[in-house]
């Protein structure tokens, strides 16, 4: 790799962080807790989801430690059930769902459409408070003994057979759901009604498009999960309900309702990540995203198809062969828009002037890992293979390739990419490149062996396993350790950079988005005056003309 880089920082001896910005405008705890500023709320969200990420991560570490040996020795089997359930609940509802939309999305959405704030700032703040309340309820659940239903609340296990804290966990997810609904609702209204003059739909950055698609899913899907959890909690409380066959209920009905949300939920988690990758790939190859319109519509297509594939989680649950056939076919359809994205990113790279700064490293890692995760999804969408592979580690590996290899990589790409905008300071480049590499290696070491374990038939959700699986499990646990270091590094050097990082200036990446045309960190109202969008998205020639004009006027 050559030393080529597009980073252009202001002269460090004279550069200063602008005195007036959203971080310094007001001081004191209350100015944060009562803020309506989307950038401050995004910051609050960033701190809270990082907190939950490390709890979820610690639980993941415990799972991998237990699986180091075939015997069930580190913890009791019941404890293991609780640990993996809490890991799933926390990671899905408290990290993955809000990760990109509520932090990076919250921070960027108004700036990208050229507005001063989201349409509903108070609702935005309410969303964070709901998240915090839900988080406290989840920590309460964990501290009084946890829940061991898995993150899926499977009935009648959850309503009838267990003595763990299903009710508080269910209510916690219910509240977290409303936090996510309000974020989605706010985004849709903002994108429809708050675009600046000249900002047509097809001039929006692709990050906005993909968050728009994810918001549709949040708004339409999450309420169904909410009512389902209400019914689970009611059934557990009054001992009669619609899910438990002992009372005449239908456990399949629960599965239908739950996956009606929870399948689209994986697109809620991954779509905003796609948006980040589009921005990063374009910036670091100095090219407009290839097939902009196709990439924009592929997000919406994923959102729409996403609502018609849920029963592929239920192939072994006794749904009819005909619906299995139809849902299998529909599942294959989702591969089309996903592939459109990957191909278009690849074509964006083609003949681009590529540089390999940290966000780009994460993005390229994303493309590889997401492709593997997506392709194995096609295996699982085919009914025959799915019946063999579901309930094995193959599913665990597939899900983690998409969610950790896909979503988490794109989250970190986004955090590094917009860190200079957010804080006004650069992260240290060399060590962060090392972290990106560590994450990639650690990730593959952790989860690739699980594909093999799955095809060999190792079932998921057990604390013990036959000794012949040990070698691969040791690889996986070793990988998890490396991965853990990969995640610890950013938190250390990003915190360090808050004080010691180089001053970034307005546009260190020479990127074209509106958010880069304002100061870093931005003003509370984002722009000195509402911008007028007079060029297409990702128009690097426009940026060049703009800079030449500036030089000329100086």
């Amino acid at each position, binding site marked *: 790799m050559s030393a080529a880089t597009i980073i252009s920082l202001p002269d460090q001896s004279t550069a200063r962080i602008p005195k007036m910005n959203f971080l310094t405008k007001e001081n004191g705890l209350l100015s944060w807790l009562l803020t309506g500023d989307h950038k401050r709320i995004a910051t609050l969200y960033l701190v809270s989801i990082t907190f939950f990420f490390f709890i979820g991560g610690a639980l993941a570490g415990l799972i991998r430690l237990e699986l180091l040996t075939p015997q069930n020795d580190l913890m009791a089997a019941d404890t293991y059930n609780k640990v993996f359930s809490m890991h799933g609940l926390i990671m899905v509802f408290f990290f993955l769902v809000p990760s990109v939309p509520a932090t990076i999305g919250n921070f960027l959405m*108004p700036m990208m459409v050229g*507005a*001063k*704030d*989201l*349409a*509903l*700032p108070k*609702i935005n703040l309410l969303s964070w408070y709901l998240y915090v309340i839900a988080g406290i309820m989840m920590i309460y659940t964990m501290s009084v003994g946890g829940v061991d239903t898995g993150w899926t609340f499977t009935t009648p296990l959850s309503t009838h057979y267990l003595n763990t804290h299903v009710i508080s966990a269910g209510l916690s997810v219910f509240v977290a759901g409303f936090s996510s*609904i309000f974020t989605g*609702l*706010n985004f*849709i*209204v*903002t994108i*429809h*009604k*708050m675009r600046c*003059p*000249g900002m*047509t739909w097809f001039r929006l950055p692709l990050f906005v498009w993909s968050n728009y698609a994810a918001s549709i899913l949040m*708004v*339409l*899907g*999450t*309420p*169904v999960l*909410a*009512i*389902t959890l*209400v*019914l689970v909690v*009611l059934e557990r*409380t*009054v*001992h*009669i*309900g*619609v899910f438990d066959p002992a*009372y*005449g*209920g*239908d456990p399949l*009905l629960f599965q239908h*309702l739950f996956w009606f949300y929870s399948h689209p939920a994986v697109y809620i988690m991954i779509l905003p990540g796609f948006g980040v990758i589009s921005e990063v790939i374009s910036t670091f190859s100095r090219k407009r995203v290839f097939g902009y319109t196709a990439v924009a519509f592929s997000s919406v297509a994923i959102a729409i198809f996403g609502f018609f594939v849920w029963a592929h989680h239920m192939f072994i649950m006794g749904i009819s062969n005909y619906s299995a056939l139809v849902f299998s076919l529909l599942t294959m359809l989702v591969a089309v828009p996903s592939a459109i994205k990957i191909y278009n990113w690849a074509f964006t790279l083609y003949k681009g002037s590529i540089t390999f700064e940290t966000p780009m490293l994460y993005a390229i890692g994303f493309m590889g890992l997401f492709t593997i995760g997506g392709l194995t999804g096609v295996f699982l969408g085919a009914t025959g293979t799915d019946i063999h592979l579901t309930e094995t580690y193959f599913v665990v590996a597939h899900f983690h390739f998409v969610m950790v290899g896909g979503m988490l990589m794109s989250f970190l790409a986004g955090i590094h990419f917009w860190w200079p905008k957010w804080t006004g300071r650069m992260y240290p480049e060399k060590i962060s490149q090392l972290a990106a590499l560590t994450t990639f290696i650690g990730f593959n070491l952790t989860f690739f062996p699980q594909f093999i374990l799955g095809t060999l038939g190792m079932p998921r959700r057990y604390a013990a396993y036959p000794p012949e699986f040990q070698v691969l499990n040791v690889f996986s646990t070793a990988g998890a350790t490396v991965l853990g270091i990969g995640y610890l590094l950013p938190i250390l050097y990003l915190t360090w950079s808050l004080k010691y990082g180089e001053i970034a200036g307005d546009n260190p990446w020479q990127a074209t988005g509106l958010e880069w045309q304002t100061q870093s960190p931005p003003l509370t*109202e984002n722009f000195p005056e*509402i911008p*007028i*969008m*007079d*060029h297409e998205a990702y128009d690097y020639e426009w940026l060049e003309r703009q800079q030449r004009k500036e030089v000329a006027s100086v």
Partner: protein
Amino acid sequence: MSDSTAIARGAAAEAAHPHPGEHPPYQRHHFETVGQQFDATNFAMWLFLLTEVMFFGGLFASYLIMRNWYYPAFVEGSHQLNIGWGTANTAVLIISSFTMAMGVWSAEMRKKGMLLLFLSLTWILGMAFLGIKTIEYHEKWVKHHVPGLNWSDSSFLNPASDPEVHKDYPGDKPLAPEMAQKAEMYFFLYFAMTGMHALHMIIGISILTFMIIRARQGAYTTGHVTYVENFGLYWHFVDIIWIFLFPLLYLISRFPNS
């Protein structure tokens, strides 16, 4: 849109508001115009109602499946409901939707007295609905028809087993054990659905109370009707939910021979 028209549009927007500092007091700082503020909050309310449709949709889906499975028991359960109170409540809610619509109209016409009158009428009708619902719930409690809290199969197997109750409801016929058990499913759904609806009514009435206080201070009659209008949308939505609940719960096979 070409560059020049975009700029022209921006210039036009500026021309319409030559003094950007002079906004009506109710315009929030991050909106460019009052029109944008109204559009955005109104659109947000419609989206919120969409989430509510999905929320109740889960309940309705569960209801329809259970009703298909246990139709005879649902007929028996439904016949336990008091159709008179149900009809009265439907009428109360429809009238309240009318008074609410009149409230929005009064706010638009800037008639403070009328607004207060119609909001108060809506409030009273909302409370009347909850009052009637309480009477109905109380009747179910007395008859031991509340699943989980006060339920007895024998009140269906042999209604005469509790003579105190039976003398008030002499028409109740004994049911087979299987039917009695599935009637519990019906009543579970009845309480879940009407309870969720009543919760929305309680939230609505609380907001209405707040709005009446604000309306007395003249908050909605100076041209800023967004809040009243959006609340109206919510109120009509809750009304519509009841319009579906009433036939689904009360009117199952009322006249089997006709």
